[in-house]
């Protein structure tokens, strides 16, 4: 049997010290290899496990340290090549890795699909066939429930509206094609089409932004604490952690002592990143330089930038302000218990509209202000939407990305002045991808649209 390559998270989400992303299919090894830093996977022996890192191939940003096991067909669960990526527990690493895997050629597995493949490839005994079918049905029901739950009314309404906009455009082009001499239907022009697709493109973009926010709610706001050595980063972390003792999650791994820490500040989940860096190397900027900061900043949703009340501003500090330009950040001037050496007016002008807090962590002063600033930032529209339209399902995000790509291909074709019926091919794909999100891909609705929108006939 010939199949494409599928992938899914095969451990319970959010539980356990280790999570596994499993790939099965003819491309399993080659897909894993494109995102794996370590041994060349196509060359390793079957049924071996290898240490390395998973990165996003285009940006080369590392997602996690992992152990990857390679098992070649036919002696595997599905009788196909299987790769299992063992990463750290929790939600973040594993969903990020799944996302990368899906972006690089694998398809998200349907409910029960690994089991189905195992069966179809003759791996499971015939007597188990019924059981397999029941599994598919029950997993589908389960997934449906989850999907329905995740697909809140607002998202589904929004997607429906976008599809409606697309189908009206499609129907318009179709009517030009199927009824070429009807003069009461205006001929769709490239400009008109561009306008319509641009609107939908923006909306999908916005949804993907919202998707990121949905992830924030689930996984926490990725927060980096940066600043010169000895400015009080560890103290800040400790005081945040102390405030919310119960929420700290230390995940002991084999490679690092601390991978990620969650704190909950007034109900806002923060995921502190590069905490190891803060603890082990005392002086981030000096030791690893601006380049490393750059990388941390690329990952962060929110930056807490700490300055010392007792020291003048340096060029390094000014450079960091420049790096923070497009990010959400809060400036914290610590050590106000000590004498003022810093030029607060200059900081105000550098920080522009971003929040500026003064603290004395030693005297436990200013933490409330910081929490208030965090809450303000979080509940403003920049980080999360108040109406709660969240896209958090990996499948939905994947489909939104596919819709966006298809739409971009349509836009390119428009720019090349391709005939509209050709451009239409990708617009229709966009419409279908969006339809998959809300479970509606019936093409009959196009025909319905055609005849309800236009007056046609002999």
């Amino acid at each position: 049997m010939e199949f494409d390559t599928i992938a899914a998270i095969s451990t319970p989400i959010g539980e356990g010290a280790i999570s596994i992303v499993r790939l099965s299919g003819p491309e399993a090894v080659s897909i894993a290899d494109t995102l794996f830093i370590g041994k060349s996977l196509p060359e390793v022996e079957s049924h071996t496990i290898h240490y390395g890192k998973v990165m996003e191939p285009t940006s080369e940003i590392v997602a996690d340290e992992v152990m990857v096991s390679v098992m070649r067909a036919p002696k595997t669960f599905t009788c196909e090549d299987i790769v299992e990526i063992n990463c750290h527990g929790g939600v973040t690493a594993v969903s990020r890795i799944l996302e990368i895997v899906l972006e690089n050629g694998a398809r998200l597995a349907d409910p029960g699909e690994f089991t189905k493949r195992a069966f179809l490839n003759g791996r499971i005994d015939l007597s188990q066939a019924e059981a397999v079918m029941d599994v598919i049905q029950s997993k589908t029901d389960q997934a449906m429930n989850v999907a329905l739950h995740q697909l809140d009314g607002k998202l589904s309404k929004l997607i429906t509206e976008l599809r409606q906009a697309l189908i009206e455009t499609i129907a318009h082009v179709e009517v030009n094609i199927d009824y070429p001499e009807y003069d009461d239907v205006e001929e769709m022009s490239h400009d008109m089409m561009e306008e319509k697709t641009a609107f939908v493109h923006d909306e999908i973009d916005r949804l993907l932004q919202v998707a990121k926010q949905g992830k924030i709610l689930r996984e926490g706001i990725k927060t980096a604490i940066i600043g010169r050595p000895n400015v009080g980063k560890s103290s800040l972390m400790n005081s945040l952690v102390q405030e919310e003792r119960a929420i700290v999650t230390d995940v002991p791994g084999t490679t690092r002592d601390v991978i990620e820490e969650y704190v909950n500040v007034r109900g806002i989940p923060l995921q502190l990143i590069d905490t190891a860096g803060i603890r082990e190397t005392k002086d981030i900027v000096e030791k690893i330089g601006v380049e490393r900061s750059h990388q941390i900043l690329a990952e962060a949703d929110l930056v807490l930038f700490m300055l010392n009340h007792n020291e003048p501003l340096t060029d390094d500090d000014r450079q960091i302000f420049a790096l923070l330009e497009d990010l959400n950040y809060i400036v914290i001037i610590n050590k106000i218990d000590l004498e003022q050496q810093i030029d607060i007016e200059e900081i105000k002008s550098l920080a522009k509209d971003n929040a500026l807090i003064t603290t004395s962590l030693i005297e436990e002063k200013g933490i409330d202000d910081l929490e208030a600033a965090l809450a303000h930032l979080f509940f403003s529209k920049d980080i999360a939407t108040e109406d709660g339209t969240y896209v958090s399902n990996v499948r939905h995000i994947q489909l939104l990305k596919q819709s966006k790509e298809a739409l971009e291909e349509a836009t390119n074709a428009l720019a090349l002045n391709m005939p509209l019926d050709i451009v239409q091919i990708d617009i229709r794909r966009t419409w279908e991808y969006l339809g998959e999100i809300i479970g509606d891909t019936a093409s009959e609705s196009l025909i319905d649209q055609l005849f309800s929108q236009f007056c046609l006939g002999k």
Partner: protein
Amino acid sequence: MTYHAGDYDVIVIGAGHAGCEAALAAAKMGSNTLMLSLNLDMIAFMPCNPSLGGPAKGIVVREIDALGGAMGKVIDKTHIQMRMLNTGKGPAVQALRAQADKPLYIQEMKNILENEPNITMKQAMVNELIIEDGVCKGIITETNAAYYSEKVIITTGTFMRGKILVGDYEYESGPNNQRVSVKLSENLEELGFDLTRFKTGTPPRVNSHTIDYSKTEIQPGDEKPQGFSYETTEFITDQIPCWLTHTNERTHEVINDNLTLSAMYSGMKRGTGPRYCPSIEDKIVRFHDKPRHQVFLEPEGRNTKEVYVQGLSTSLPEYIQTEILRSVPGLEEAEMMRPGYAIEYDSVKATQLWPTLETKKVAGLYTAGQINGTSGYEEAAGQGIIAGINAALAVQGKEPFILDRSQSYIGVLIDDLVTKGTREPYRLLTSRAEYRLLLRHDNADLRLTELGYELGLISEARYNNFQEKLRLIDEGKEVLHKQIVKVADHVQDALVRAKSTPLKDASRALDLLKRPEITFDVIEEMIGEQDYPAEVKEQIEIQTKYEGYIKKSLEQVDRMLKMEDKKIPDNINYDDIHSLADEAREKLKEIRPMSIGQASRISGVNPADISILLVYVEQGKLARS
């Protein structure tokens, strides 16, 4: 008492567009074929609009031709005007449309049928099918003649229990006041077939002498000679124009004031009418804010003065029809020669058919054309040829012939009908095809000639020409690939004239042809004229320019075909598969899809059901091996 009147391989009941193609295909494939018509003067009659082709439909005519059918050849010989539509759009949606000369079309088609040695034509009304052990063995006519055969194809169009409605007047009739077929319909019901009532309509015809054409707009044919058939070499140059006028407020007022008198709005008509072919009453009611609607005046032939008033299909009383006509500019003095009418008729629910168009209930019995719930001459002819081919193949004990959705519009049409059924008369639209870019007007021969040849429907001579065309396309592409276009004045000039960007470096001619604005002509301006026929140049250009999109479509087709190849055994018992959702089980039992692919297109069958079905089918395979 019946008498034994003869024995045949195949009997075709009806001689409309489906019947003609069915009989010709079966006969050419060696079947001794009997063709029965209610009226031998009305063979291949066009009861409604005098035109063939247009988007999607025109491509079907070409597909029929590539399979050796007659429709394209006949219209090429008998049209009064021909136009290529959608020339400003992409190659996938261009299509020819011809205005037909109705009486000439009949003569020409009849001539072809009469000269086909394996066809016997008779005028007869069929009342009953001869069924033995669930297998169709022949037919009995109203004059008690019993004809026996291996296969029977019913192509009775809108004749079964037909009823014509004009205002509140109704009478039993086939289209255009022909005899109605009642007993056959009853017989099918007795045999357990599920019939539905459909309706359609036609506009009035007026006398050309009474039209003031000066108040209308001329709609001439194309100057370029062209035809549907790949065998046509002589083209008609003497064309007749059509004319365009519009309804106005006065027209709409008359209609609105008299709506209750329309057969449709008085509640008499029970059948379901097509949305794409609404009556003028329908248009005014549903789109009441439109100030006017187009009305095309189309001659019905060269030697007749009757003009078809396209756009004014109606079932209003005759006197209102006159009033409506006379409100339209150019028609103020128009004399109506025939009134418009609505017609209601029985059709067979097409989900009762296999994709071969054989019925699931009665083996050896096929139905094709408007009886299956379609509308349009082309849709009918497309089904006709497939039914004829399959009947002939079955007589020879050979494998059936089924076109898939990536091969032809005919495949899309039949798959839609037998898989989804239709709740209104079905018309082909280009948007019904998933792989529109592959199903082009220009490549119907490339798609289907080989298949037609294998079936024995394409002559050696034509097949050789076709092979030569394939060779020239490959050769031409190779030549353009090797031809390097250097930066030179005449090259840059040609590019600028074509509104393209000048070259920076030398480029392959084939790569330049990929630019949307660069046609083959522009390439020839750069590299000199190429010695290939126009249709070869056209293929090279289209295949090159849309290569990326074509490739994408082909990849989709590959995925679709994988599912199509997974056959479902005919003896499958869906009740044994407990995990199936109830709705899916009912649908699967009704449609009995032949493949997993077909099953996945049935509405109400979900992906999970398909997975379950796949597991079940594979399990069966494993068990056997």
